[in-house]
């Protein structure tokens, strides 16, 4: 009698890792740009996670003896108008950006996924009611709806996350619904209905797994947008508040005022925003090419 390896045993785990590694390698070979993007994203995540250990200075303590010093060996990216080290603030700012980026896009895309599939599955008046509601939400540019929400709930990290999540939901729901509509007519969904499975079982077990491709594509495209949106809101003074380090916030106030005499103040935080969004988009594009090249986001 052969022994079946338990799912947690070393052999199975090693096998899984190998298969996962193989898929990663194939992705890297087929989509070099996407792999590069993924690498940069990983670097930003590492910087965010290990900010305390990597950052050379404390991001919050002002140093009035070293105000607006140009980039040097001790302060690679220079210091701001409070003498705070810009590199350290960028590293800690990655925390805010990654937190908002991941939480908002994950929440937005997932809510959109559930709403989109449910809308397609139930058809009829449920579908048309949901669609009209989504129409209403889609009538606003992302930042306008986000600003309106911030004006109601106030600023701060948590409210910014809510303000960014809400406008993303209908955008994902739209795309997912159109994929799920096709799926609804597929024989195995009919079969599941004929077997008398509950609505939630059909939606969650039979339909959701098959719209993962558009979901993942929307999710990755949201991440870059969420980071940009957070930076814009913070830049306007309506997002993350001082003294929390955030990239958009670092471009505001002193950075604009002293731009001519201390150009490193606006240049480096902006580079951080651009680089991270660029990386997310490269990765997202590659993922789309692999999963569903026809989908346009």
């Amino acid at each position: 009698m052969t022994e079946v390896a338990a799912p947690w045993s070393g052999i199975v785990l090693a096998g899984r890792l190998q298969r996962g590694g193989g898929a990663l390698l194939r992705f890297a070979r087929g989509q070099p740009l996407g792999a590069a993007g993924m690498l940069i994203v990983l670097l930003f995540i590492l910087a965010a996670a290990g900010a305390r250990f990597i950052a050379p200075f404390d991001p919050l303590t002002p140093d009035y003896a070293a105000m607006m010093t140009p980039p040097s060996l001790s302060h690679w990216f220079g210091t701001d108008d409070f003498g705070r080290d810009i590199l350290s603030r960028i590293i800690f700012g990655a925390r805010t950006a990654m937190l908002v980026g991941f939480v908002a896009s994950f929440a937005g895309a997932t809510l959109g996924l559930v709403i989109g599939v449910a809308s397609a599955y139930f058809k009829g008046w449920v579908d048309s009611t949901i669609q009209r509601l989504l129409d209403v939400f889609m009538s606003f540019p992302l930042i306008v709806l986000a600003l309106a929400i911030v004006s109601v709930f106030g600023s701060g990290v948590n409210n910014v996350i809510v303000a960014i999540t809400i406008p993303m939901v209908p955008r994902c729901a739209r795309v997912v619904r159109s994929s799920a509509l096709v799926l609804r007519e597929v024989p195995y969904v009919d079969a599941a209905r004929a077997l008398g499975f509950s609505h939630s079982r059909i939606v969650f077990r039979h339909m959701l797994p098959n719209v993962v491709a558009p979901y993942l594509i929307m999710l990755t495209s949201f991440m870059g947008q969420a980071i940009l949106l957070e930076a814009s809101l913070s830049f306007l003074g309506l997002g993350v508040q001082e003294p929390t380090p955030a990239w958009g916030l670092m471009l505001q106030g002193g950075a604009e005022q002293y731009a001519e005499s201390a150009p490193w103040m606006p240049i480096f935080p902006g580079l951080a925003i651009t680089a991270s969004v660029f990386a997310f988009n490269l990765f997202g594009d590659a993922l789309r090419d692999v999963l569903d090249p026809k989908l346009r986001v």
Partner: protein
Amino acid sequence: MLRYVIRRVLLMIPTLLGVAVLIFILMRLIPGDIVEIRFAGEGGGVTEEMMAQERSRLGLDQSLVWQFVHWIVGIARFDFGISMWTGQPISYEIGLRFGLSLQIAIMATLLATLLAIPLGTLSALKQDTLIDYAVRVFSIAGLATPSFWLGILMILGFLIFFQWMPPIRYTPIWVDPVANLTQLIWPALATGYRYSAVATRMTRSAVLEVLREDHVRTARAKGLRERIVLVRHAVKNALLPIITVIGLEFAFLLGGLVVTEQVFNLNGIGLLFVKAVGNHDYTMVQALVMLVAMVFIVTNLVVDILYAWIDPRVYYR
């Protein structure tokens, strides 16, 4: 066609009504009373009486339904009410600034379209060559660069290399076109970069798809010149999705202007919006969000009508 247009215009009404309800509810969700928040900054000198007076001046002592109906009836007559901050009619405040924002939006759209269609087509034609990679990187970078940062860099560059700054005072284009353009071309470029990036990507993918179709192969096989194949057979058929994206982004431009106007210190709709949010000027926020939604819905309608004009296959019921 006319019947279709009429039907679409009528269909706009429920969406707009939904938008109005949404904004109205959103503004009533504000924790605490609008008047309390407005007076919060003024310290202890505010009496109950003053607050009650302010409430009745703003119509907040009436029932919610009455407030909503009053507001909607006003909007139907393009009367958005009175700004809670300046005390001026909102239509007047918006009227002052609308021209400037509209001009930037139109300039950015022209820039983006002129750049996107040739670049995207070129990229599709030379797929997987160095040119294609360059265009793709250029357009992904456009999606990633915040327009406000680009604006800051532009101003910084002018200051450092030319000791020059774009003029601060706004001159209408019919008064002095040169002064007007030297001021507004930069924000148009800053917002237009992202716009052109989105449109370039769409052009590339649409042209790539059409190039693989049979009629393009036939056109080439019968010996038509490549230029004719490209313009008449490929790009013309790829135009539909490109127009959609240009139309959609036009409406979104108003959102992009929110940040760009701040950088260039332009007194437009975007700056008005940011100030209204900062000042808790709720009637103004309400009106501006409504206005943006209206522009968006109308733009969508225009795009759909353009469809019929470009592609006779599109069938309307």
